[in-house]
């Protein structure tokens, strides 16, 4: 079983996240890491591959990442967790790419790889649009099975469970397929020290747009279908109002809630 996991390098949400002058996310000046939501996809891929390998089937996990130079950190983290190889699409012309361009590039990279299963996270922790998996499946003509809370495979099909508010859907698709997984599916492992040392010897293939036969005109900020006109910081939260109970606390709480049209 050959599995490819698409992973994104995102600014650390614990740090100070900023936008650049062209209103895209600042990816240079801030600490980045493997998107936490993608860790679930990596973990799921490793679990599947380990189970398959244990039953005698040759299985590999390749991670695919599009992003600036620093994004190799995300690839490295996945390799440290246990993935076998990495592919990093890196090109200055990619800066500012929207979801459509991203899916185009990832699809082109996937066409150069062999796979039975493509896994992705449910969304990136910076963009949170959650559309790349669907676009990618569309571009590659793969069945798209999104938001899986559980994944089961036999040789030719993948079956997932998607938990909704009132029901759990069970969806089956033939392989090869694209599956996005939620943060409920597993408990991602930490890289062990051994994994960190081993990762240094694993291959990472860096590809440019030219390597993928894509033109700079198809991607990047200038090709984006939408333009961010302005960004503004959210206003700081107002200090709360404190009500000291002087016998009439209940009444005053209700007055406050009524004033805010909550009751």
């Amino acid at each position, binding site marked *: 079983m050959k599995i490819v996991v698409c992973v994104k390098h995102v600014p650390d949400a614990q740090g100070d996240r900023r936008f650049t002058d062209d209103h895209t996310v600042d990816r240079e000046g801030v600490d980045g890491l493997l998107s936490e939501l993608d860790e679930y996809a990596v973990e799921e891929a490793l679990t599947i591959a380990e189970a398959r390998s244990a039953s005698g089937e040759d299985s590999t996990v390749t991670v695919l990442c599009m992003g600036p130079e620093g994004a190799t950190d995300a690839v*490295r983290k996945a390799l*440290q967790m246990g993935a076998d190889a990495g592919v990093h699409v890196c090109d200055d012309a990619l800066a500012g790419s929207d979801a459509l361009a991203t899916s185009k590039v990832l699809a082109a990279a996937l066409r150069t790889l062999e796979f039975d299963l493509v896994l992705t996270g449910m969304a990136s922790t910076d963009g949170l649009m959650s559309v790349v998996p669907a676009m990618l499946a569309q571009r590659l003509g793969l069945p798209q099975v999104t938001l899986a809370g559980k994944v089961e495979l036999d040789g030719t099909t993948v079956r997932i469970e998607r938990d909704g508010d009132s029901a759990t859907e069970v969806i089956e698709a033939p392989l090869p397929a694209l599956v996005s997984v939620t943060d409920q599916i597993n408990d991602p*492992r*930490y*890289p*062990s*020290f*051994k*994994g*960190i*040392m081993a990762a*240094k010897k694993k291959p990472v293939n860096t590809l440019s747009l030219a390597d993928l036969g894509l033109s700079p005109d198809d991607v990047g900020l200038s090709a984006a279908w939408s333009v961010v006109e302005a960004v503004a910081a959210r206003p700081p939260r107002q200090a709360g109002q404190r009500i000291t109970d002087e016998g009439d606390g209940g009444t005053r709480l209700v007055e406050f809630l009524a004033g805010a049209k909550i009751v």
Partner: protein
Amino acid sequence: MTTSVSVESSFELSRDHEDFRRVVRDFAAEHVAPHSAAWDAAARFPVELVPRMGELGLFGLIVPEEYGGSGGDFTSLCVAIEELGRVDQSVGITLSAGVGLGITPLLTYGTAEQKARWLPDLVAGRALAAFGLTEPEAGSDAGATRTRAVLDEASREWVIDGAKAFITNSGTSITSVITITAVTGRRPDDSPELSTILVPAGSAGLVVDPPYRKLGWHASDTHGLTFAGCRVPEANLLGQRGAGLRQFLATLDDGRIAISALALGLARACLEACVEYAGSRVAFGRPIGANQSIAFAIADLAVAVDSARLLTYRAAALKDRLRAGDGSVDRAQVAAAAARAKLHTSTTAMDAARLATQVHGGSGFIEEYPVARYYRDAKILEIGEGTSEIQRLVIARGLGLPVD
């Protein structure tokens, strides 16, 4: 052994070390920090955490791959202890003692059979080992050991009588073996012959006394041990008969570097707590950090923490060079660097805890803030694995001073 981490004369941490630090920090933030206050309050040893630490490879960092370890270096172990110690000193000492006192003697002096029997479970975090040197009547003066082990020629067993005091990890539900020092005879000059013996947990005649009530390290396991005609096979001798003194001195050198890393974690936690609180707590209409008396004290602490870090990782780097067979480093150099690191870093940790508590005012005395726990946990750092006085003794002797 495969040591792929840089062992050059510089003691800057490599990128691998920093990657690993991040992993341990994440692990500590997720699996340790949320529980530390509760474990401390209940004086509960979190035994369920040990296998998780094993999965992360923490117990096997300096163990060759054939026993399930990662064949890494001592510096990595220090990084792990520092990061765990930054959020929870009890968990930090569990690792430090588990590896430095539990695994190291077995790894260094054990026979192939002894290693194969004990190491895999210890490395995986399925078991813990302890090192019993201190006795009620022999602490700093460990040569005064009274515990006796007599070889019963008929049954080919050691018969052990005596007592040990304050032994870390000796009474957990997963403790598998306790390495003890004991007098096994007299030398020609009538001085005691000290040897090291492996006592499996649960051996008949080994009594694990109830846990102590301690000032700090509440979530670490510490017991006194009583040996009353305790019998173990002759083959449980660790290393050569009569080599006990040399063995434990070497073990303590390593342990001191590890304790220094533990103290560094506490000092950093205190520094961070000071900066945060001094910037946010308002008195007389301004943050308390606007007072030079507070800001300057914290500035001094930052310098002390930096120097503690450099001393700690210099000692670790020297240790790694010695392990890697670098002929330009000898044991005495490592011992001297270890003593200096441990002395300075434990002093810094204690100073840091005192300052952090003071900066927090009344809140520093209340268990709601972690600084109260840091304060209680700091003191032992100046005592365990050689008191500050003993470190000074080692350093002064190293200088050639006629001190006795």
